[in-house]
């Protein structure tokens, strides 16, 4: 009987592509909800950049079963069928502009579906890549101002998705993109060979590229810095400007330093010298190609303290502008959660949504995706599940032992703390028990000192900074206290890391 309402058409004028939503009235929506939502959609003021590209229409429908007759352009197309109250904020008695606008953005700017899909195990692109417009804008501002960028964000925080968005937008910004994951690069020779292949033979298959890279690697041997310089000279002569999007830079440097072999022990001087030579050389190439090449370097740990900690040239990345992948705030978390749910035409009570927002704030896209993936399963089993059911699922399937696999990457990352690992481990253990109130810095220092045996204040400062940079912990504003940044990670830590 839910077949009366408005058909919303979001038309991408540039491509002619249309997305449809049927917002129906249930009869028990809050007073004014229908009017506020439809008027909100009709009067929606689009951001300047979308104004000439989008057309939004809201047409009344009194019998949805006959909608194809009145609107033949919907035949064979997907229509999201949702109650009009999906876009109504009952608390504020207003239209949920941000939620609707994010859908319009998906259609117009990302050329995708109105609502994102949960890409839990894959890199989110297009309309599945949620929010982060500000970061993308910031990165492009730096690149277009001939500044290299250091994108900081732990794994699973959406960093790779941001890099893919930048890669996808490169042509539009008149750059030829070259994306390389540096995690699988183990020597400077490999670095040069990989760049060479990607620049010279971008259209070859991955296997052909690997073979070619192997060939080059064998040729360059000890002359990688000369050959590499030649390569950048060649790039300078090319017509197109090149944007290098290089992911996991610190992991590559770890390999150069032979950290895997050292397994927490001393790094050999030859490894350090070789790595130091590389970082200096790489800096020279970036400086020399300024204006023709741009570099977006990313890492799941912050490069600056990393260089200092590993006694590498501290200025080797100093020209890069830092852009930090921040958490989603509660509003963005709510919009993301609602978009994921509405995309599957799932309607949950305000109470459950509020709880989901609480659990996921500060928001980390990966954790939100993990939770929402489970929420969909829960809903399919029982569409009227309660907050208690949600919490039971959360403790059992996500932060409990069953959810361990979702946190593998964090454990792996944690290993990188080397000799500081036991101290850091104890700190996080105590912090996970301390809940949202957190612990005083002094107390954390004592815990660290007691468990690591180190009495050096600088050692403690480094690990505290690492944990902060790595988004494990945050300083509580206006205090000297620290706490876990993410409630999910905290709950997981509390249950599993003891």
């Amino acid at each position, binding site marked *: *009987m839910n077949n*009366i309402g408005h058909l919303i058409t979001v038309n991408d004028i540039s491509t002619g592509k249309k997305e449809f939503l049927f917002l129906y009235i249930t*009869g028990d929506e809050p007073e004014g909800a229908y*009017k506020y939502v439809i008027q909100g959609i009709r009067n929606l003021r689009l951001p300047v950049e979308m104004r000439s590209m989008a057309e939004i229409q809201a047409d*009344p429908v*009194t*019998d949805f079963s006959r909608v194809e007759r009145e609107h033949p352009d919907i035949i064979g197309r997907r229509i999201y069928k949702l109650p009009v109250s999906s876009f109504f904020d009952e608390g504020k008695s207003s239209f949920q502009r941000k939620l609707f606008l994010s859908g319009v953005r998906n259609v117009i700017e990302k050329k995708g579906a109105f609502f994102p899909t949960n890409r839990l195990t894959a890199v989110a692109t297009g309309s599945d890549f949620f929010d982060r417009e500000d970061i993308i804008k910031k990165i492009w501002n730096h690149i277009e101002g001939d500044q290299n960028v250091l994108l900081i964000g732990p794994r699973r925080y959406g960093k790779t998705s941001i890099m893919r968005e930048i890669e996808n937008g490169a042509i539009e910004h008149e750059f030829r993109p070259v994306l390389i994951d540096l995690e699988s690069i183990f020597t400077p020779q490999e670095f040069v060979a990989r760049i060479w292949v990607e620049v010279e033979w971008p259209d070859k298959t991955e296997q052909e590229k690997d073979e070619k890279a192997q060939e080059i690697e064998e040729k360059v041997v000890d002359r990688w810095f000369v050959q590499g310089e030649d390569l950048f000279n060649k790039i300078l002569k090319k017509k197109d400007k090149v944007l290098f999007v290089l992911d996991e830079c610190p992991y590559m440097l770890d390999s150069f330093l032979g950290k895997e072999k050292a397994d927490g022990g001393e790094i050999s001087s030859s490894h350090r010298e070789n790595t130091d030579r590389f970082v200096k050389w790489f800096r020279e190439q970036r400086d020399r190609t300024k204006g023709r090449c741009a570099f977006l370097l990313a890492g799941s740990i912050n490069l600056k303290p990393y260089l200092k900690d590993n006694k590498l040239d501290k200025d080797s990345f100093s020209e890069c502008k830092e852009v930090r992948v921040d958490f989603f705030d509660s509003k963005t978390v709510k919009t993301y959660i609602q978009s994921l749910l509405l995309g599957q035409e799932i309607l949950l009570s305000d109470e459950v949504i509020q709880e989901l927002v609480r659990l996921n704030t500060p928001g980390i896209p990966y954790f939100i995706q993990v939770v929402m993936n489970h929420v969909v399963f829960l809903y399919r089993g029982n569409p009227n599940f309660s907050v208690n059911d949600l919490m039971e699922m959360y403790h059992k399937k996500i932060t409990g032992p069953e959810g361990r696999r979702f946190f593998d990457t964090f454990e792996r990352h944690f290993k990188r703390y080397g000799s500081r690992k036991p101290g850091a481990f104890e700190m996080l253990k105590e912090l996970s028990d301390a809940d949202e109130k957190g612990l005083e810095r002094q107390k954390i220092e004592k815990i660290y000192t007691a468990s690591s045996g180190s009495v050096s204040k600088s050692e403690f400062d480094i690990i505290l900074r690492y944990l902060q940079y790595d988004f494990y912990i945050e300083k509580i504003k206006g205090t000297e206290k620290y706490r876990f940044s993410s409630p999910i990670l905290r709950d997981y830590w509390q249950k599993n890391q003891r």
Partner: protein
Amino acid sequence: MDKRKEKKYLSEWGFKSRSKYEKFIKGTIEDLEFIAPQVFKIFKDKVIEWEQDFFKDKGERFFAETISPPNEKLVKSPERVIEKILESWKDYDQWKAIPKGQRGQEPIRHDHKDFIHTMNDLIRFRVVCNYLDDVKYIGKKFWNFAKKCKGIELVDCIDSIETPYPERRAGHRALQFIFKYLSNKDPIRFEVQVMTQLQHAWDKKDHHLIYEYVRIKKGDKIPVHLKNRMAAMSEVLYVADNVFDSLLTEITKIMEKNRI
């Protein structure tokens, strides 16, 4: 209406042009777009509910359907609202020009600003039934519903099915309910017509064969004998409706007997 007269009324009401008045009307009836589907839904859901009640333990057949005017236009367009207001003023002036003793009933003159409280069909839709008996059944349900429902009040019901000659004027035979929707801060009137499929079919034909010309003041060009034939067709279909009702009763009776 001739342009001079229209201009005179508009200027009396403080509007320099028709487009300015149209803008005003548009703003006044804007909210109706959101009230209309809600009212429509209430009735559509009720008719489905009553249909289910009606068919308890009986075989199913088409019973009734709540339908909106063509192109989903539950709300009268601003242009039509203006026409109706202007027309009411013209009719009133003509009535007033007649000497007092000879005047008929005073026609309704819609206030140019406050028309929303006097115009019955700013929101309108129809319930189309299979048999005349179904129309009567729905009619009764409407009366009871209006008594119980807090948000809806029955203002009037014009029964042009049972209206005898000479009071009955030509047109479709229907139950024409005028309700008031009270859930809005400012109560709104709306009209629901209940009629048979045959009468609905007749109305559809009359709409473009006669009514559209009458509306644009060209109705007098259609000869009276053609108008009469059109009106007679409504009566023919009314007779047909009665025959179908009798057939239904008799066949049902026979079949029930046979079942025993």
